[in-house]
């Protein structure tokens, strides 16, 4: 199954609606609840990142029998130093984002800890692409 969702930068009232929709679909088809949780937490972090940092983005979800693959493509300022962005505590979030309870520099590390695969590519001045995959076959890893 393939799904595509559009996300608008700055639209905090709808931030999380894609994650919510994906959560519903994963639950409906009977994916292990711990994998659903890991996936939607990572997706929500990534979705909030688009709303917080980019102008707009598209989230593509590929749902197979054995895995979920999510690609988030945004048009935005990009990330100059991805390794630095992966460091816990590093953040460039605005005061508005911090008031929402985010911007603590924990998003990318948390995405990594919740997904089996995470790849971040970015071009400064153009945008960022986040690709993440979770496999359904080993839920025991979710307890780590």
């Amino acid at each position, binding site marked *: 199954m393939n799904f595509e969702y559009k996300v608008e930068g700055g639209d905090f*009232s709808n931030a999380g609606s894609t994650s919510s929709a994906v959560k519903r679909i994963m639950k409906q088809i009977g994916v292990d609840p711990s994998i659903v949780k890991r996936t939607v937490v990572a997706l929500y972090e990534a979705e909030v990142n688009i709303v917080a940092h980019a102008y707009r983005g598209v989230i593509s979800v590929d749902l197979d029998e054995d895995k979920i693959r999510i690609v988030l493509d945004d048009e935005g300022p990009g990330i100059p130093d991805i390794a630095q962005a992966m460091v816990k505590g590093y953040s460039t979030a605005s005061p508005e984002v911090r008031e929402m309870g985010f911007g603590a520099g924990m998003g990318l590390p948390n995405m990594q800890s919740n997904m089996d695969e995470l790849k971040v590519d970015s071009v400064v001045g153009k945008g960022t692409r986040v690709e993440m995959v979770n496999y359904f076959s080993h839920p025991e890893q979710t307890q780590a």
Partner: protein
Amino acid sequence: MKLEDILRLVDGKVKGGSIANEPEVDKVFASDLMSDVLTIKNAQKLMLITGLCNLQTIRTCEMAEIRAVLFVRGKKVTEDMVELAEENDMLLMETDYSLFRASGILYQAGLQPLY
């Protein structure tokens, strides 16, 4: 602990949402930082105590599988927060007590910390 006991202990009120089954919580996490809430593992019968009162608080709890939220320091939940909580079978409560006071009372009464 039953939610009605929690409400009595912190002089709180239910402000919307619902919990369909077993209106009780076992463990509590207290934070204003949603980034921190999103790092919670293995939440079951979990309540969040927070002073951060906006729609993203509810969205975060939806993703983190939190079933009840106690808003402190007299923060008022809004209609759109209640709607989202109802969609997700989540209960919203308010108290005028501070985060420290509410947490202390509930800890003393036997509610367990998550970590």
